[in-house]
């Protein structure tokens, strides 16, 4: 265990290795490590941001969905109301129309009955005249018995 020149030489070698490490090994490795740390931190931050924006987008979607649901519900209710109103109106109109048609038909029937009665009356009076003529074997003077005939017609 002699202390000799080796000590100095080893110290010089040690110093050389320190210098080499401090100059060529440490800086690039630390640079790589620190840059990668920054990249990872940035990536994590970006991921966090993405998560947050996703959450807010989901919230907005939920809001929009709820709004759309309530709107559609409203529209359906409105539509149903409109539909029932339309049906009601159509029913009323149809009833009015039907009444009108029925009334018109009744009036026409009455007219027709009156007209039939009139023609029947005329025919009966003619028949009566013809029958009377045959009975009397002579011409009944229509003009002379006009008021008579009219009276009979009235009785019929």
């Amino acid at each position, binding site marked *: 265990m*002699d202390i000799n020149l080796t*000590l100095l030489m080893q110290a010089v070698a040690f110093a050389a290795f*320190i210098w*080499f*490490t401090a100059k060529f090994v440490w800086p690039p490795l630390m640079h790589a490590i620190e840059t990668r740390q920054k990249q990872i931190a940035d990536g994590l931050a970006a991921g966090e941001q993405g998560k947050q924006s996703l959450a807010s987008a989901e919230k907005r979607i939920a809001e929009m969905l709820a709004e759309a649901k309530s709107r559609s519900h409203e529209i359906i209710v409105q539509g149903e109301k409109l539909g029932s109103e339309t049906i009601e109106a159509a029913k009323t109109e149809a009833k009015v129309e039907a009444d009108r048609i029925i009334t018109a038909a009744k009036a026409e029937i009455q007219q027709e009955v009156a007209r039939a009665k009139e023609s029947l009356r005329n025919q009966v009076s003619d028949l009566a005249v013809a029958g009377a003529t045959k009975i009397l074997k002579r011409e009944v003077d229509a003009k002379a018995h006009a008021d008579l005939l009219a009276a009979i017609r009235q009785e019929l």
Partner: protein
Amino acid sequence: MAAGTELTPTEYIQHHLTFLAKPVGEGGGFWTLNYDTFITTGIVGALVFGFLWLVTRKATTGIPSKTQAFVELTVDFVNEQVKGIYHGESKVVAPLALTTFVLVLFLNAMDFLPIDVMSWIYEHVFNQHTWRGVPTADVNTTFALALSVFALMIFYSIKVKGLGGWIHELFCSPFGSNPLLWVFNLLFNAVEYLSKPLSHSLRLYGNMYAGEIIFMLLGLWAATGIVGAVLGGVLHLGWSIFHILIVALQAYIFMMLTIVYISMAHEHH
């Protein structure tokens, strides 16, 4: 064993504990260099830091390769330790901690190479009769590291507090600034300053040296016969596995103490 001749146990251990020490220049005494320690450190350091450098050259800020991820894991581990202890501004402390950790870890890890196999390789491939493969089991290495840290400690003390502030602290803390207490303060600080590099270096040296010795003793036992070989082999395996913990732990402790000492130098008392 490496020489192929019969060795006594003492000779065996002495052989394994002999550095390839050669005088430099006119040499002798202090001017001797342990070539094995120095060259092994150079090769291991070049391989390890070369590997780190290759990884940084292909480093990407995007998805890292498995190698890059592993290296980054180590770097980040060291960085976290430094951040937790050191609150100064120096940009050198973190790379220094990484250098210390990686270098000590791999110099310690040389201990995993089986001592007698390596000895044979050093002898027959590299033609070196004596070669110690674990630089951190050489007290010169651990003192070199610890004293470098010590020098940085002094440097940062002066840099942060100013020369006057540092000297003032030497005399006036921890007991107070009364002139009567100056001597005691100085003594206390001297002990503290001395004990730091000593414990820093000797802890690592002791652990690695003892680990090596135990491998040698188990090797000696394995040479005694078939029972010794089996038991020695089993214990060798066990000690190797336990040694993984020691190697990593000592590297970690060495790094932590480096950070702690330097951050203590930044503190005002």
